[in-house]
């Protein structure tokens, strides 16, 4: 309340209280006006009070909403983070599964499933684009004797070492795989028989030069191989069969050699 207002209030109160003024014609009107004025002031005060209360409720609610929002946001972030990690885990497991389903556990070479997939794709490509490819079947000589004389652990080591040499001696885009047991298959895309022969001979000699330590002695391992070029219109199993037949002839010719399919 300002000073002027207080002074006015005091003046009115004094005038109304003075008995000398009680008969004045304006006395009644002023007293009524004074009452109405007081009531109005009271009402304004009450309204202000209620309004303040509402404001503080709204403010409290806003703050608790903000708190809840923050909590939910933190939870959401955490859910997203954990979910991402689960997905990452699944992705890695998928890759491992894919690797396991297409590769040989012992040698880490392609397994028969992957070889067949690639043979099929290569056959289709050859048919479409008139490209060459060759298939070599490679079989370890007297592998049963290695197992019998030196045990299966040594046999496994021989397989692993041979796989390593094969992988090292072929070209980057050739595919080496374990066809089964001690038999390997090499798929050589974009090569005619003569050029493929060079690669397979390199593999054969690489394996023969390998010295696998067994106690104090060094094992020498040889392989026999049959090589066939894919013929136009031929299925890949026919190509494999001809390579297999060539391999059989290599075995019959005293092993440790490469025979080309007719």
């Amino acid at each position, binding site marked *: 309340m300002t000073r002027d207002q207080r002074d006015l209030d005091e003046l009115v109160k004094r005038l109304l209280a003075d008995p000398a003024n009680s008969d004045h014609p304006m006395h009644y009107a002023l007293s009524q006006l004074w009452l109405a004025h007081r009531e109005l002031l009271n009402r304004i005060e009450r309204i202000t009070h209620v309004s303040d209360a509402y404001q503080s409720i709204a403010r409290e609610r806003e703050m608790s909403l903000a708190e809840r929002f923050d909590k939910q946001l933190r939870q959401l972030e955490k859910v997203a983070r*954990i979910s991402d*990690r689960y997905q990452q*885990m699944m992705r890695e497991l998928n890759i491992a599964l894919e690797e396991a389903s297409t590769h040989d556990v012992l040698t880490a070479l392609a397994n028969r499933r992957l070889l067949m997939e690639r043979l099929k794709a290569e056959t289709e490509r050859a048919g479409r684009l008139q490209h060459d490819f060759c298939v070599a079947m490679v079989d370890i000589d007297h592998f049963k004797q290695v197992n019998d004389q030196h045990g299966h652990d040594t046999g496994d080591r021989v397989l692993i070492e041979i796989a390593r040499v094969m992988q090292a001696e072929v070209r980057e885009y050739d595919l080496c795989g374990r066809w089964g047991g001690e038999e390997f298959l090499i798929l050589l895309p974009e090569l005619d028989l003569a050029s493929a022969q060079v690669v397979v001979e390199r593999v054969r000699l690489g394996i023969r030069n390998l010295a696998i330590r067994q106690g104090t002695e060094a094992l020498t391992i040889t392989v026999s191989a049959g090589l066939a070029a894919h013929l136009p219109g031929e299925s890949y199993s026919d190509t494999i069969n001809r390579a297999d037949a060539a391999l059989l002839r290599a075995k019959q010719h005293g092993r440790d050699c490469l025979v080309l399919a007719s």
Partner: protein
Amino acid sequence: MSDFSIPRSQSTPAIQGNWSEGVLSMQGDSYPENSYELFHQVFEWVERFLQDAGRPLTLELHLLYLNTSSIKAMMDIFDLLEAAHHAGQPVAVNWHYDKRNERVADLAEEFKEDCTFPFAIVGF
């Protein structure tokens, strides 16, 4: 009160609630299409147990993969346990994982982060 048991399906874990022993167990993967349907009965059971049983509650979890809504559901259940723990009720979680997959242990650690009740991550 009541035991309950949900058999394992291809996309949901096996779940058992043992009221007299105070043990809730889950085994398997969880990626249901409708997580709410699956987990609201679990949530309700836990809520009722904490309210009525007056006994310690232990969760034995053998969970491998959880989809996003299952993660949220598990966090909601852990929130229930956290509140009970603050009210002085004994609750505990044992999260079991195959030692060949350490990543599951890391994920369990993420869940454990905000929990102050006993939360063990046990390799087998």
